[in-house]
């Protein structure tokens, strides 16, 4: 790439320029027969996965193992790893955004390889994939869709937690070709699939399958542009149509005049379509203009967001539309300010005064020109031109009075990073746009997966990104690969990571444990600061007790509970109870969860802990669930029996209460038989309620028997009687009671309750009995009963002139006369 012409490889299609750049040369071994391979490339210039198509005859070569493998290469042809593959034919091979390799077999098993080195997680597609078989798959950055033999479509939209979902069932018939629109670009935000069946195209999403009503099929190829807005269709008669992905508008048509159907159709950016045959590539730009490239042998096309990678044995090339800033500057005869600025740099180097003249001429547009130069530098692949453009920008901004250099500085940094990873030893060739979309963090993650730790750390430091994950990955790798003794490795790792911020030792320990080095794992785990993170691994390692302790330490009850559930299912009950007995938090959690679901466990727990009262309470709760009175009594008996040996006062009180509860139920049962009125069953009432109900229904004798049986205090008894009698308005009985000399609750309540029930006559009869009250209060009581004269008498007795006078105002008719009489009686005689 030492060409001196910035326009090398430019090609004009219609009114746009396209550029084909050679990224790397002699990519693959000459004897690697690319035509026999499937090639899938990860997005953003990522790794390439090659798998030999078993259906094609291959030349036998000595020394080559016959074992089937999936080979992972960088764009520069550097072998990253071989993954052994013995699981039969592959029906789908694709990558996710974060360089997870997905391999789908015919029977619907998906292997999700992460980290580029053969670690994988399998999952099943299900939904009939086994029965009908997977025919093919289409991938997008975070998921894929599989097409089954019966046209069923299964979508997976996350690989962290794959949940295959069936999309709506499309009609029967041969699927000529298909493609998908990623969820990010559809209106519904879920994936949509375009299926070419018969002469038309169906759009299928989760809920419906809709016929787009086209009639010019069958379409041999469908491809959707990276931004999801356009679709390219290849008709049987060799024509390419570019239409909107909603099939409302047709934008252009191109006749390839080819007899054979291309092997591949894909988009190059969002405005041109690539048709690829074995050794020929057509690029169709807007309005049907096209350019053709010919190769000597097989070429594979790997589409990316802003261009395509063309892979042959000899070279890896990048074909893309020339970005606007570059076009603006380098286009022949360009007179834009930016172009002038770049020219003046050459003049400046020649010390020509014209440089200044030029600058003055474009001064009004200089800021934009500088910006264009900076952006062009980012888009330019050639180091020399990058430098030239940046120099131009630098020169331009030095002339400007006010200019923020942030953009310039950022671009310089970004270019350093990009140039570093574009090196053929790394082989991550990203365009600037791809880099922006990928983000620096994920670029670093890619380096880590390629085990380029040193570069990753240097770049992290350079970009001010945290480097802890790199260290953790390195340490995990170290633990996996080294064969030294445990202590030595541990020391090495701990020493190297000392003082580093935010290291997850749990990850490293897990790596050690997975290698079967549990001692190393335990010692490493001690360095993990997050108690919670240690727990799952400790559980795997059968360090139950420690796991439980750590879980409790973390304060996260979910975690404690998790450990407890595991322990409970794996330990014998007695051991389990012993384990938790000394840990109050654990015991509390077990207790409260068992209360909801597992009463038996709770009984065992209380028995083992010697807590008879709690055990008995449990039986009492049981009793409350029984619908039959006899079952209730049985449970109560059991509950009481648990307490027979207990000596503490609570237990004694409980025993007594339980016996009484049984006794009460028996009495209530009897009442139910004897008394058959509409008031319902006595069962379940409390003692006071029972007495109340009895008195109210006129069975005072029976109520009295309840009182004596349970030694209900006199006061309560009187209150219950009073309330019941007034509620039932049994005034006769109230009068009967009123004949008693003394009431343990005083007579005031009688007055209040009876008055409250509206019987003023009876209420007033209690007023004279309230001897402990003040006269004023009694006056008030009389007034409330409407007996003004009586109140007057009370006032007279107390010689309370003021009250009398106020009573006079309330009085009427005869009362008035009476009060006046009392007033005169009380007034001092003149």
């Amino acid at each position, binding site marked *: 790439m030492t060409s001196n012409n910035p326009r090398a490889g430019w090609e004009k299609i219609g009114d746009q320029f396209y550029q084909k750049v050679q990224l790397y040369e002699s990519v693959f071994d000459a004897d690697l027969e690319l035509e026999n391979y499937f090639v899938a490339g990860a997005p953003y210039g990522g790794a390439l996965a090659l798998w030999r198509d078993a259906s094609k005859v291959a030349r036998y070569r000595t020394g080559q193992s016959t074992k089937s493998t999936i080979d992972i290469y960088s764009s520069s042809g550097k072998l990253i790893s071989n993954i052994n593959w013995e699981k039969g034919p592959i029906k789908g091979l694709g990558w996710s955004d974060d360089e997870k390799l997905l391999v789908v077999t015919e029977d619907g098993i998906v292997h999700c390889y992460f980290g580029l080195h053969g670690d994988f997680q399998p999952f099943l597609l299900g939904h009939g994939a086994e029965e009908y078989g997977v025919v093919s798959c289409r991938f997008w950055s975070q998921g894929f869709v599989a097409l089954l033999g019966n046209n069923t479509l299964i979508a997976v939209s996350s690989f962290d*937690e794959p*949940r295959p979902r*069936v999309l709506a069932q499309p009609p029967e018939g041969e699927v000529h070709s298909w493609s998908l629109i990623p969820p990010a670009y559809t209106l*519904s*935000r879920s994936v949509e699939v375009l299926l070419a069946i018969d002469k038309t195209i169906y759009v299928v*999403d*989760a809920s419906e399958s809709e016929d787009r009503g086209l009639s010019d099929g069958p379409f041999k190829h469908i491809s959707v542009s990276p931004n999801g807005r356009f679709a390219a269709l290849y008709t049987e008669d060799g024509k390419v149509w570019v239409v909107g992905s909603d099939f409302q508008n047709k934008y252009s048509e191109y006749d390839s005049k080819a007899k054979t159907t291309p092997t591949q159709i894909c988009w190059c950016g969002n405005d041109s379509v690539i048709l690829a045959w074995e050794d020929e590539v057509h690029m169709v730009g807007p309005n049907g203009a096209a350019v053709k490239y010919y190769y000597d042998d097989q070429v594979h096309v790997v589409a990316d967001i802003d261009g395509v990678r063309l892979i042959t044995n000899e070279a890896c090339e990048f074909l893309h539309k020339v970005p606007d800033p570059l076009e603006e500057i380098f286009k022949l005869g360009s007179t834009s300010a930016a172009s002038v600025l770049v020219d003046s740099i050459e003049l400046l180097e020649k010390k020509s005064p014209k440089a200044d003249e030029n600058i003055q001429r474009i001064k009004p547009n200089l800021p934009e020109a500088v910006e264009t130069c900076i952006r062009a530098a980012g888009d330019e692949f050639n180091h020399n031109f990058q430098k030239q453009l940046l120099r131009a920008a630098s020169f331009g901004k030095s002339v400007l009075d006010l200019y923020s250099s942030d953009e310039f500085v950022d671009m310089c940094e970004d270019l350093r990073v990009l140039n570093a990873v574009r090196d053929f030893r790394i082989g991550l060739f990203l365009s600037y746009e791809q880099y922006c979309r990928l983000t620096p*963090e994920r670029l670093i993650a890619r380096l880590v997966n390629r085990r380029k730790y040193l570069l990753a750390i240097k770049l992290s430091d350079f970009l001010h*990104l*945290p480097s*802890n*994950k790199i260290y953790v990955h390195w340490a995990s790798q170290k633990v996996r690969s080294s064969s030294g003794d445990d202590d030595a490795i541990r020391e090495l790792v701990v020493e190297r990571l000392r003082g580093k*911020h*935010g290291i*997850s030792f749990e990850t490293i320990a897990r790596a050690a444990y997975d290698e079967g080095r549990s001692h190393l794992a335990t010692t490493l785990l001690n360095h993990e600061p*997050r108690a919670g*993170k240690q727990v799952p691994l400790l559980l795997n390692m059968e360090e139950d007790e420690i796991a439980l302790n750590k879980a409790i330490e*973390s*304060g*996260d*009850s*979910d*975690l404690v509970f*998790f450990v407890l559930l595991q322990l409970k299912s794996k330990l014998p009950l007695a051991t389990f109870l012993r384990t938790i007995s000394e840990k*109050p*938090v654990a015991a*509390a959690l077990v*207790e*409260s969860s068992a209360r909801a*679901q597992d009463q038996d466990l709770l009984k065992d727990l209380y028995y083992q802990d010697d807590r008879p009262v*709690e055990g008995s*309470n449990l039986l*009492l*709760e049981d009793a*409350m669930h*029984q*619908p039959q*009175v006899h079952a*209730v009594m049985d449970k109560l008996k059991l509950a009481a029996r648990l307490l027979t040996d207990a000596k503490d*006062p*609570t237990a004694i*009180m409980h025993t007594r*209460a*339980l016996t009484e509860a049984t006794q009460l*139920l028996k009495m209530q049962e009897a009442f139910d038989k004897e008394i058959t009125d509409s008031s319902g*069953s006595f*069962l*379940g*009432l*409390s*003692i*006071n*309620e029972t007495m109340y109900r009895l008195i109210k229904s006129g069975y005072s004798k029976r109520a009295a028997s309840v009182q004596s049986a*349970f030694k209900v*205090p006199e*006061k*309560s008894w*009187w209150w219950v009687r009073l*309330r019941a009698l007034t509620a039932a308005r049994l005034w006769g009985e109230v009068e009967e009671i009123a004949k008693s000399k003394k009431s343990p*609750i005083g007579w005031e309540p009688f007055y209040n309750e009876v008055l409250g029930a509206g019987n003023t006559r009876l209420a007033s009869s209690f007023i004279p009995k309230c001897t402990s009250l003040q006269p004023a209060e009694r006056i008030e009581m009389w007034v409330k009963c409407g007996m003004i004269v009586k109140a007057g008498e009370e006032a007279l007795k107390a010689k309370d002139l003021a009250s009398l006078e106020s009573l006079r105002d309330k009085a009427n008719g005869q009362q008035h006369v009476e009060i006046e009489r009392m007033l005169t009686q009380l007034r001092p005689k003149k």
Partner: protein
Amino acid sequence: MAAHPAAKVINTQEITDKARRDLLQLLEAVRGKKNLVLERSLAGTIGLFVKFSTLQEYGVDKVFFLENHNVDSSQRNVIFLLRGDNAKTVRTVAEQIKLVRSESKIDHEFSIIWIPRRTRVSDMVLEEHGVLGEATISELALYFVPLEQDLMSLELESSFSDLYLRKEPTSVFASATALMRLQKQYGLFPRILGKGDNAKRLADLLQRMRSEEDVNASSDPSKTYLTSFGLTPSSVVENLIIIDREVDFPTVLATQLTYQGLIDENFGISNNQIEVDTSVLGGAPAPPQQQTGTAQPPTAATKRKVPLDSSDKLYPSLRDANFATIGPTLNQTARRLQSDQQNIKQQDQSIADLRSFVSKLPSYQAEQASLKIHTGLAEEILKVTRSEVFSAMLEVQQNLLAGSDPSTVHENIEELIARDVPLKTVLRLLCLESCLSNGIRSRDLESFKRQILQAYGFQHILTLADLEKLGLLVPRESHRGYLNPIAGAAGQTATDWNAVRKSLTLWIDDVQETDPNDTAYVFSGYAPLSVRLVQCILQKSYLFGLVNTRQGNTPPTGGGWKGFEDTLTRIRGATVDVTQKGHDADASHARKTLRGSKEGPKVSVVFFLGGVTYAEIAALRFVSGQLEKSSWRRIVIGTTHVISGDRAVGAAVEKRKFVE
């Protein structure tokens, strides 16, 4: 109502908005119409930040309650929105998914949204039931839900019984996570103060989380860039004060005497709403438009939901006042409205007058509607407070709080039992006595227990046992209490109420209810201990002045608990005082510089672990108002949930009967 300046500092509206956005986004992720299945307790919480009509816009067709087991198969998509902490809930979900799947002919799409996070236990239980792969699982990190601008609640209804009855740490962890999220947004609390053993646990957990955060942050790719340098002390939040409910049970047990408190006691406020008979509201006009939409189906015709929040015209000015002053205030308002109306009628009106009147009309009407509602409510409450039983109860309560000999009120309590007042009322009084005097003499307690069993039924053996476990109703034991030398460093196990009542002036005889000058107004005499503790930190000189009326003693200076250490040792539970510094002094300095050197309003976050009552909220708002006047500082209240005495003892009360 003027916006709280604190609201600008800790913006609770942001939390509401974020919660709504997150929920709607999750709903949107499921395409097409869907049925939503909620936990009953969540319905109100969700209603606080999103209207039912909005949910409908996002494709929600019907809403079911998980508890009802009636999810139908009318929609292909079924979304469960649940709290994931409880294994029982998870099991119910698993069963319902299986049920719907077996009964329905359609191939359903199930989604589960766990609040506030997806738990391991939920995964495990779902896996056991074989439905883990069936459902798309996501989480909605809903921790604090703002009830008001200065009040954030986790709405964990069960946290009181979890903490004190079952001794489960779940809510401590949830609180720590929620506070951690606040710290991530506003910076570290420069100082963490607290009282109580659970407060200590919470503070320890916060410290631990902070150290773990460093590792977590860096393993979370989305946030790496921002948090990779560690947290720095906040420049807007001054401190965090954690009050463990256990330290101050009496305040919960006492009957609240503020308007909002009494509404809660009588109608039960949940999620800023009450449900009352339409008759109470006396034909108030149909629900005003601003009524918070809820995710609940319409209730029976005779009941109506009344929203109680700052959107109401009158409520903000009424809620924190002592109930005694409500009548006059309502009267005044009524008169003012009336005179306004007359003015309008009488005046010779120019067009301009008319226009200004018309523009005021909506607010005028809203005010009138609100007046009608509150008059109705106040009358209803008045019926209760005027009753003989209420005054008997209040007398007992005030005597106990003022520190009279408990044995003098025993007779009154016995009478209340005999008169069959609600069990909870009796229990509150007994628990109050037990808490204030560190247990009831065992002979008396025995007799009370017998009377309760006789009056309310033997099933309450369980109630009484649970109350003892809660530590609310215990026999007095000689080795308990503050004289025990062994308790020592671990903190006291009991509070010396007599000493504390004096040293913190918990009782004020001549309290002013109309124009309050002390927090004691919320209980007409009793100043809540919890609030006094906060005052120990924020209003040192005021509190000091109350106790030392003599001149000459200088009030204590300095931060934290300084000046009240002696008193604190007489209160049960550990004392917390932690200062948090940033890893990097430069960074915190830089942050300060960036924020500008001028002192903005500083905020103290008061967090109640185990619940807060409306009376305490009123008292804290009162303190906050004073602070704002004197030093531009404010209080923001956080809590696990809002509690009342009935709810506290209700945690213990057995609800079933024999043979039902």
